[in-house]
């Protein structure tokens, strides 16, 4: 809150979402009117109503459902493949300095490489097929999860750790009762970012090499110049991204209501 004038206070008194809703309605009707009147080319910017109509068509004939389920399945697998080792490696690096110092330069080098580039590598190992696509989509998410988990362990309050040790917590008790709960908020942040990134890479991978999935539907709609299909697909992907981000945030709020939101990216 940088400015708190009287005008802003008055604006806040009205329903806060009203302006957002108005803004969307205004843009959509302007678009509808401009496209209908030929002010913008419908070949590029089809009327919103016709996009909605196309959405209904694609839902009815099952096209959207089959592509959506292909994408969701890949995202789920990629997320799993990234999350479990990511948390494990992050925790290991957090408690074991040797691992941290050995892996740090390697990770710093590999992490910024865009995941799509791993597709050829994954295909060498696993053959051109579904496992290669999933593995490719998991790479960046793995690093995000590991990085956040590592930070979570590292930022633990020394006092808490020492108290636990003094009260005789060792081994798995120290791990499960102190280390893990203490770093959970960070782990969740890593999972949230990782899920978002898995979606990004899955769509990219589908664009360059898959027969099914929202990314390939997008690519196909470009090649066949079906602009309405493209807008429908983009909308679905947008809401997926929205859901991935805010859905996990809700889960975190439910599970860790006492913890504030924390974040580290790169």
């Amino acid at each position: 809150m940088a400015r708190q004038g009287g005008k802003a206070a008055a604006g806040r008194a009205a329903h806060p979402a009203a302006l957002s809703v108005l803004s969307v309605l205004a843009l959509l009707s302007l678009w509808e009117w401009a496209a209908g009147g030929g002010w913008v080319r419908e070949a590029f910017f089809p009327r919103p109503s016709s996009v909605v109509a196309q959405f209904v068509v694609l839902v009815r004939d099952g096209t959207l459902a089959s592509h959506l389920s292909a994408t969701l399945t890949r995202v789920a697998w990629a997320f799993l493949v990234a999350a479990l080792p990511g948390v494990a490696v992050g925790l290991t690096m957090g408690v074991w300095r040797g691992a941290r110092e050995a892996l740090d330069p390697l990770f710093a080098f590999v992490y910024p490489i865009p995941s799509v580039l791993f597709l050829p590598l994954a295909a060498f190992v696993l053959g051109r097929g579904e496992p290669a696509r999933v593995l490719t989509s998991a790479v960046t998410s793995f690093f995000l999860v590991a990085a956040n988990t590592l930070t979570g362990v590292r930022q633990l309050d020394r006092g808490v750790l020492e108290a636990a040790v003094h009260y005789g917590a060792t081994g798995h008790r120290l791990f499960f009762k102190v280390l893990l709960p203490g770093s959970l908020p960070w782990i969740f942040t890593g999972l949230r970012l990782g899920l978002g990134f898995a979606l990004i890479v899955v769509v990219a991978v589908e664009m360059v090499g898959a027969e099914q999935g929202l990314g390939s539907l997008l690519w196909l709609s470009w090649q066949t110049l079906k602009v309405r299909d493209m807008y429908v697909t983009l909308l679905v992907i947008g809401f997926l991204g929205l859901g991935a981000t805010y859905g996990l945030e809700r889960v975190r709020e439910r599970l860790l209501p006492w913890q504030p939101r924390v974040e580290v990216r790169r």
Partner: protein
Amino acid sequence: MTGAAARQTLRAVRVDARSLAAAGILVAGWEFLPRRGLLNPAYFPPASQVVAALAEGLSAGELLPHVAATVSRLLVAFFLAALPGLGVGVAMGLSGTVRRVADPYVALLYPIPKVALLPLMLILFGVGERAFVLTGALTAFFQIVVNTMDGIRQVDPTLVEVGRNYGATRFRLFWKVVLPAALPGILTGLRLGLGLTLVTVVAVEFAIAKSGLGHVVWGSWQTLTTPRMYAAFVAVGLLGLLLTRGLKRLQDRLLAWQTSVDVW
């Protein structure tokens, strides 16, 4: 004081030694496993071949144009996005009205994979540089908007209050109080924006462009010239390392009073 400094140096040396050892083991494995036939050398050529391909590509100038293509796309996209991104971010941070009007679009478009916007750009602008660069620019734009807005909104209200009590005008309040306080968030947005734009640009090159490091990886994959593929891979890695670590260091230098938590 000197003892502490010496200890710190010693520690840094030990860290470097460990890192070097780990990297050495990795490179040695990469060299010998393919040579012994434990890894298929057609797919995983020994490290020395990759280094040779990289050196040859850079000196013979075969790889250089692709590096230049990627870097120039990256920079053009970033600078196209930076000013509008900062402007919209500041406006959304300062004014609740602007924020409420723009929020639905940012909320929907920010989490969208920007590569997904490539087909739309291809339809709007045809297959060519404009479409490639704009797809990259959209990536940077939304990252910068979101971080700038957050940076400004997280400015401590007390600071603003104090500034106002000392009689600062709105203009001065913005330049002297709000902007410096929001600078860490803004710089983070610029840095993340540049890094993510590299991801998008390379993905675009991988998918459709006929030049750039992404295209080299794709092309060498199709023709199975794997040393060249890994050479491009390493080049992208170095570029990314430069962007993430280098800019991170620059940010820490610029904002010496601020320690940021960041990994990789």
